[in-house]
Each structure stands twice: as C-alpha cells, then as structure tokens.
C-alpha cells in the first residue's frame, strides 16, 4: 500500500469507527425512549 493511500484509508477508517459508534448510540437512545414511552402507557 502506498503512503498516501494508507493515510487516506486510516483517516476514513477512524471516522467510520467513530461515526459508526455515534449511530449505534442513536439507535440505542431511540430504543430506550420507546421503552420508556411503553412503560408510561402501561402504568
């Protein structure tokens, strides 16, 4: 792998990991919020 290609791949990989984690957090937030709504409806 050439240096400049490796640099681009490393930067892209870093942001895929970070943004992937942010997306995962959002999906968990959504699920917990729905669960809280369901609990409030049930009580």
């Amino acid at each position, binding site marked *: 792998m050439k*240096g400049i290609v490796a*640099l681009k791949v490393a*930067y892209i*990989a*870093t942001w895929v*990991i*970070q943004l992937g984690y942010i997306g995962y*957090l959002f999906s968990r937030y959504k699920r*917990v919020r729905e669960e809280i709504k369901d*609990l409030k409806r049930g009580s």
Partner: protein
Amino acid sequence: MNLLTKLFLVLTVAALGYAAYEGLVVAPTEQTMGDVQRIFYYHVPSAWTAFLLFFSNFIASIVYLAKRNAAADAVAAATAEVGVVFCTVVLVTGPIWARPVWGIWWTWDARLTTTLVLWLIYVSYLVLRRYSVGSQTSVLAAALAIFGFVDVPIVYMTIRWFRTQHPSPVIGGGEGSGLHPSMWPPLLWNWLAFSMLAVVLVVARYRLQTMEQEVEKEHAHAALQGSPQ
C-alpha cells in the same frame, strides 16, 4: 439539550475540523516516511484518549465498589465503552501505518500485543456488563475493570522496557527521541479535539446508561406489583 451542551458540541466539531487541517496540511512532511506519518496525528491522540478513558473507568469502578453509587457505575460503563472505540481506532490505524513503513501489517512485539490484550480486556468487560444477569453484574464488572487497568501502564512502558518494532516514546524517551517542535501543535490540537469528542461521547453514553437503569428499575417495580402476594 441545553445551550452549554450545544455550544460544547459546536466547539468540538470546530476543533475536530481545525485539528484535521493541522494534521493534514500544516504539519511538516516527515523526511523518512513521507505523508503516511500523518496517521500519527490520529493514532497517538486516540491512544492517549483511550488511556485517559480507561483511567476514568478505573477510578469510577473503585468509587462504585466503595460506595455502591449508581452514577459511578454509569460513568464506568460509559468510559469503558468509549475507551474501546478509541482503542479500536488505535488498533486499526496502527497496522495501516505499519504496512507501508515496516512492510508488515502486524508483529507480535510487546507494544502491539499488550495493546491487543488491553482491547480484549475491555471488550470482555463490556460483554460481561451486557450479558450477565443478576444483581452482582456491576460488582463483577468493577472488579474486572480494576484488575484490567493494570495493563494500561504495561502498554505505556513496553517501549521503554523492551526493544520493540514499535518506535521509541515521543515523550520522555531519552536522547535521540522526541518530536520536531513544528509537529507538537498538530499533535496537541488533535489530542484536544479527540478529548473533546470523548467527553461528548461519554456524556451521551452516561445519559443512555442512566435511562437504561431507570427502565430496569421500572421493570423490576412492575414485576413486583404483578407478583402474587
């Protein structure tokens, strides 16, 4: 989201943008490695941030064991998870940097191996928290975190204790080591930006953890009310 949180978010995005500019444009091209050395400005700050997060997890775990404080448990869960994300960045960018420079993706030298072990310890911690059922989960997780943290100073010291393929330390590495002065601002900007991102992620994950704790309490309460007398 209050005004202070919004302001911090905007500042974090701005800092990340400026830090990328510093690392990719302002930083000088290293003589031996060329442009690929710029991976350093993501790789090293990610490692430092991961170490700080695992240290925070260690402190929060001690506080939890001493006081059985739910907030400390939530901080421990949040810092471990975000720490694993940053440690993953280190383990992914390292081999991408190593391939053009060393000619290999990976070698089982002391620094690389102990970093992989560190990642595995905290992934085990997260698996324990996620799949263990029962009231002792947080206690077991806190104990694992305290023992697991022992690997952090070992990772830090490996390049001082052993001759490794990994380069010598940037700070406190003795004669002949160290950074060119013009490389310090991009490194410190990137570390600041990554630390700010870590704060944002930990706060978000902490809030999620407290919400999940509330849901668990509600479920337990509902189960008790529904159980036969």
